[in-house]
């Protein structure tokens, strides 16, 4: 490809990206006017789940580390953010079983600062846990991270002076507006794409594909994996914080294995290692989880009365996940990514290229 067409394409792609972001902005501006609160909330959840999916995909799909601890890192983010946002008066009122630890009482920060702190705290814990745990590989790593996340949940339940124990934290201001969640999603996507397009992105995939060869090429594979894990945990912390500020109530029961499982589903259905896939996965899984609520309601067909079965959604989802793994292991996108080249080749206005670019 000559330099001229390269430049022309870059201009076209940047314009298209800006247009897409503008379209998203118009949608976000209009959505609260057209749609009811419930639907707005789902649209909000899609962004948060996309952030969580992207961060787990960074660890599992791109870094090749099977982690089942994402709910734990979300919890860290949600709690850090909540404790920073609440005012001292609110904290005194809420921690009535055991008073809040004095060093936490007067900590107060604006929402965005609390969000960053949530990310960095989760990344720090991710770094800490990864040092011993990343020496394991494959399924063992999954079990160890799952264990970590469960231990964390028990800690949250019992460290009442810090977390308010099983009562949880209520009355968190609802900072997660559509603008906030999608703004952060755009930032996360931008950051991830930048990383994957840099040589460090190549290195991450190299470590995933062949650790021995990567070592021979002078890459400190352990450090690289620790870094990738921590970056993913940063995203998990931010996602957790956004979730807390959307639901306005957090408690230890929110961050169970079921939470990790639904993020994992987003990543697997979308395609391991694909940024586009995680976003598509987030849209699909979030809307399906809501839409499928009807199967849990009582159902009457003629004279047949079926009482509602709680948890039926998850059964259906498990079956779906099994089907994906059997019939389309690589997920919707595989390792491919969306590109404008591919988009235009759909309409035949550009010379056809391979279906999406591999990054």
């Amino acid at each position, binding site marked *: 490809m000559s330099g001229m067409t390269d430049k022309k394409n870059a201009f076209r792609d940047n314009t298209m990206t800006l247009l897409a972001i503008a379209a998203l902005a118009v949608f976000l501006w209009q959505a609260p006017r057209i749609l009811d609160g419930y639907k707005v909330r789902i649209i909000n959840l899609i962004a948060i789940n996309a952030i969580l999916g992207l961060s787990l995909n960074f660890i599992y799909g791109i870094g090749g580390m099977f982690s089942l601890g994402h709910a734990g890192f979300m919890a860290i983010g949600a709690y850090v953010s909540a404790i920073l946002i609440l005012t001292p008066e609110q904290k005194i009122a809420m921690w009535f079983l055991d008073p809040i630890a004095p060093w936490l009482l007067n900590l107060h920060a604006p929402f965005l600062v609390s969000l960053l702190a949530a990310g960095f705290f989760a990344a720090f814990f991710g770094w800490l846990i990864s040092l011993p745990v990343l020496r394991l590989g494959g399924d063992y790593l999954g079990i160890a991270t799952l264990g970590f996340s469960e231990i964390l949940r028990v800690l949250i339940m019992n460290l009442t002076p810090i977390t308010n124990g099983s009562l949880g934290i209520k009355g968190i201001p609802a900072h997660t507006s559509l603008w906030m969640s999608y703004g952060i999603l755009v930032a996360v996507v931008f950051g991830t794409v930048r990383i994957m397009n840099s040589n460090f992105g190549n290195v991450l995939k190299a470590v995933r594909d062949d650790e021995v060869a*990567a070592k021979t090429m*002078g890459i400190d594979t352990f450090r690289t994996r620790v870094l990738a894990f921590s970056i993913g945990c940063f995203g998990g912390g931010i996602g957790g914080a956004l979730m807390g500020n959307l639901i306005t109530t957090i408690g230890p029961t929110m961050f169970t294995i079921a939470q990790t499982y639904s993020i994992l589903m987003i990543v697997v259905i979308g395609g391991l290692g694909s940024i586009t896939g995680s976003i598509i996965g987030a849209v699909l899984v979030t809307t399906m989880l809501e839409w499928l609520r009807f199967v849990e309601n009582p159902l009457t067909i003629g004279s047949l009365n079926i009482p509602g079965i709680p948890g039926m959604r998850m059964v259906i989802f498990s079956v779906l996940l099994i089907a994906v793994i059997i019939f389309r292991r690589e997920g919707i996108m595989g390792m491919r990514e969306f590109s404008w080249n591919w988009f235009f080749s759909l309409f035949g206005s550009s010379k056809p290229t391979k279906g999406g670019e591999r990054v």
Partner: protein
Amino acid sequence: MNVTSGAPALSLQSVSITFGGLAAVSDVTMSVPKGAIAGLIGPNGAGKTTVFNIITGFYKPTSGRVEFSGADGGVARITGLPPHKICETGLARTFQNIRLFGNETAIQNVMVGAYVRQKGRWWMNMIPFAFSSSHNEEREIRHTATALLERLGLEKYMDATASSLPYGAQRRLEIARALATKPSFLLLDEPAAGMNPQESAELLGFIRRLRDEFDLSILLIEHDMKVVMGVCEHIWVLDQGMLIANGEPEEIRKNPKVIEAYLGKETAHA
């Protein structure tokens, strides 16, 4: 031609390694002069690849030491260093069973090789318009990788996934990736494996060209005797973990111990 005086590029001194009581390599002493193309041969299971794995830091020898003199001329003891540190000193290798990063394109494979010399940190390239030196470095790496692929005749595979390349191209890509680490010493593990006679004939010239153009010393493991005899200036022969002979190709060809090791005792006497 390169000067062969001064300290050897690579020297092994009484290197031994045992795996659970089994001596895989015992008391191997050898030194490869700077700018040489040397061969390490021996029957299957003689311990050749084990020697490579010791040199590149994947195994820590039970006793003995490995010394390496890189481009700066200083001699450094590299025994026990982790593989990525050894690569930093200027030793690169390829593998017997090609180990490319299969999901990545050819150019990405080569760029990964350049990462060991990259100074910019990962987060610098995340932020646009800042850290221009880091962004320039990225562009530079892409250019050098492109040039390297062109020099090895791989330009048409630039954006093809590594695992989709034809076998011979994969072998060359693995060498290109090793060269991207800017080595002064290259270890080739069976570069002719799986090649037809014509390809292995071309390989002779290719290896010499590598040595001359990239200013390398080369040590190779090979079973194809035409390649070994045709390109190596010095040969070490390993049998059951022990060095049984070393010398120039002509001497090795006539050495009765070598013939015995390769063909068995009876044939040797016949």
